[in-house]
């Protein structure tokens, strides 16, 4: 912005203001007629503006909720019920805010997967991408602290589990946890600081979003073909073309969102959070909100606490370095036949991790029969010395034979069945969880760097204006 900028707007008032503070120019070049945009963007490009809408919905509904909410351990739960029952339209505001958080993540996840598919993270958009990953991290922190505020059972125990993770940090872990708690357990000071931070972080997110849009405006949007814009014939002004398309996207999004808000507002929440927090009663099953499940699964996949935490943060950290892990010069998966396949496998893996995150880790998935050795040893312990030696010297693979030994050892039929049940060998959720976690990192750390070397990409079109090679010409090898 040169200091001798002279606004070009016709309207004298706008011209006067814009010359002194070029705010009209700024909006115009960011999301207006002055912003040339590739003309071939598909519907997946709607999710950027939808994410912006979600942020605004959360900010507005959130600041109204804060007028009625009481951040105190003894009153928080009751104040939320006060909002639901006594505040005019309070139920609507709260359901919008609670479901809004979920939908913010839906939109942002789709936005991220779109970036992965079309290579939007590659040069010259690395910083744009990294700012986006930063927004995701900030959103996760904000959402986590927001979920604590109603001070229900899941709020309390979720906060306990997650804050405890930081105790794994060497040397300063316990100090960090004490600092987070504001004491020696999750209690009123924890709630108070989480409320404060939950109000603060959205401003940080908003600031980062402004940087994100700024970084977008320098190279301009990527597009489904992944090739650079060659000239004005490839672009159309953002307004009115993409503004009207975004209005349509927003209408469709709001229809889905409102279906949840008005007809199944608690479907994405956990019933236990309608039970006030009780430090003396642990819920049988502590699960985070659905949008944390894949990361929670990665955390649980690693037996060591510190390494689990490291893996969980690395699962997002790896996104920061993705622009340099990907060695392929081609952006869009449209022209990368192998990457396209692995992209969809990766999507399935992410959903699989999400499923693992909410399942019992020891739930059996594939049975492999029983561990006869263990059963035999258990029975042998009750047998006299000579039969014990006989059994252990030659463990029968047949359950019926083992049962005769069990009868000899004085075990009842029911006790034997229980023993067999206990020694069942299965591929359980934890195994699947570990497999998928390994694949998640394999995808980023091995597949993506290697694909750039080995993949035969399809020929790229000349320009956006002549994007279609005849289909028969496509598989040129």
């Amino acid at each position, binding site marked *: 912005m040169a200091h001798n900028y002279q606004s070009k707007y016709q309207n004298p008032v706008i011209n006067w203001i814009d010359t002194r503070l070029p705010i009209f120019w700024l909006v115009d070049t960011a999301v207006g007629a002055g912003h040339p945009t590739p*003309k*071939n963007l598909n519907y997946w490009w709607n999710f950027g503006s939808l994410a912006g809408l979600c942020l605004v919905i959360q900010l507005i509904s959130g600041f109204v909720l804060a007028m009625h909410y009481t951040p105190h351990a003894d009153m928080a739960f*009751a104040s939320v*019920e006060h909002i*639901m*029952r006594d505040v005019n339209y309070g*139920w*609507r505001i709260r*359901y919008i805010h609670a479901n809004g958080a979920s939908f913010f993540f839906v939109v942002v996840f789709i936005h991220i997967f779109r970036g992965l598919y079309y290579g939007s993270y590659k040069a010259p958009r690395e910083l744009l991408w990294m700012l986006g990953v930063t927004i995701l991290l900030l959103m996760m922190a904000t959402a986590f602290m927001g979920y604590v505020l109603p001070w229900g*059972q899941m709020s309390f125990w979720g906060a306990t589990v997650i804050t405890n993770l930081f105790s794994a940090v060497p040397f300063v872990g316990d100090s960090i946890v004490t600092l987070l708690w504001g004491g020696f357990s999750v209690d009123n000071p924890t709630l108070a600081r989480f409320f404060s931070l939950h109000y603060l972080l959205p401003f940080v997110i908003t600031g980062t979003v402004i940087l994100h849009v700024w970084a977008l405006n320098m190279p301009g949007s990527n597009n489904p073909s992944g090739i650079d814009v060659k000239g004005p014939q490839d672009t*159309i002004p953002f307004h*009115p*073309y993409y503004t*009207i*398309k975004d*209005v*349509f996207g*927003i*209408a*469709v999004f*709001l*229809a889905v969102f*409102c*279906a949840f*808000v*008005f*007809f199944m*507002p*608690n479907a994405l929440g956990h*019933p*236990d959070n*309608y*039970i*006030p927090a*009780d430090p*003396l*009663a642990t*819920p*049988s099953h502590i699960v985070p909100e659905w949008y944390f499940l894949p990361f929670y699964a990665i955390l649980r996949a690693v037996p060591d606490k510190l390494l689990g935490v490291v893996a969980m943060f690395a699962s997002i950290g790896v996104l920061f370095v993705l622009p340099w892990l990907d060695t392929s010069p081609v952006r869009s998966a449209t022209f990368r036949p192998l990457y396209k396949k692995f992209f969809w496998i990766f999507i399935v893996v992410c959903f699989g991790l999400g499923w693992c995150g909410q399942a019992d880790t020891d739930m059996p998935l594939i049975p492999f029969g029983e561990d006869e050795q263990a059963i035999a040893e258990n029975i042998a312990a009750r047998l006299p010395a000579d039969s014990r030696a006989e059994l252990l010297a030659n463990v029968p693979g047949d359950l019926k034979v083992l049962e005769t030994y069990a009868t000899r050892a004085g075990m*009842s039929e*029911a*006790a034997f069945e*229980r023993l067999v049940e206990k020694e069942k060998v299965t591929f359980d959720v934890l195994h699947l969880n570990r497999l998928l976690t390994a694949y998640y990192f394999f995808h980023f750390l091995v597949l993506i760097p290697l694909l750039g070397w080995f993949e035969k990409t399809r020929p790229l079109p000349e320009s956006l*204006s002549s994007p279609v090679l005849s289909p028969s010409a496509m598989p040129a090898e």
Partner: protein
Amino acid sequence: MKKALLSGFAALTLLGAAPAAMAEEEYLTSEEATEKYHKYPEHFSFPQSGIMGTFDRAQLQRGFQVYREVCSACHSLERVAFRTLTQIGYSEEEVKALAAEYEVQDGPDDDGEMYYRPAKPSDYIPSPYENEQQSRASNGGAYPPDLSLITKARPHGPDYVASLVGLGYTDEAPEDVQVSDGQYYNPYFHTVLLAMAQPLYEEQVEYADGTPATIEQMAQDVTTFLTWAAEPSMEARKRTGIGVMIFLAILIVVSYVSYKKVWEDVKK
């Protein structure tokens, strides 16, 4: 509050206290009993179910009667104020009279003394016990949960409540489930043993509208009432939702047509 979880806890603890040797051979462990006998709630179709469903006012009042005459002996409903009962079809006069049947503590008066007075519509429904300790002392250590949010605080809440009190107590405890003193078998409870005795019996209440007071009828009536108590704004929510969806349907059509119109001149 802690209530349900702790009563579940209490049940577990009591079970755990049984002599280990006996439990091993003759009775199932708590986990095994749960796995073998636990039932998921039956599905009921309440008038308020579905996106258009609204409450049946007569059923709400019958349910309130069941709460008052049966449940309220042990369970509080502390988030429901008398004034809100106008929503279930009582007139303001009726609510005033109804509230006046209860006594609530107020004060301090000008002499610094606390005193009891008849409740007013602005008061909340008084709880059966002064505090959690008193409640536990009267219930063998178990804590009957507050019912204000019960249908939202359990998975498939309305179906669960109606199944638990309407269907669950008719089954005899199986022989391999050990039922200690102060425990009752109910396959719909998450550990199949809970500290609440069968609450409903045939003809336990006499409905003013002549509806036969079967156990299942009373269970569904009180479930409907508790569904209202958990979310009094449910009808307003659905009503608003219908309007919102109609508006958005129009917006989708208008914005799509505009989008296509604006893009007409863009060459592919």
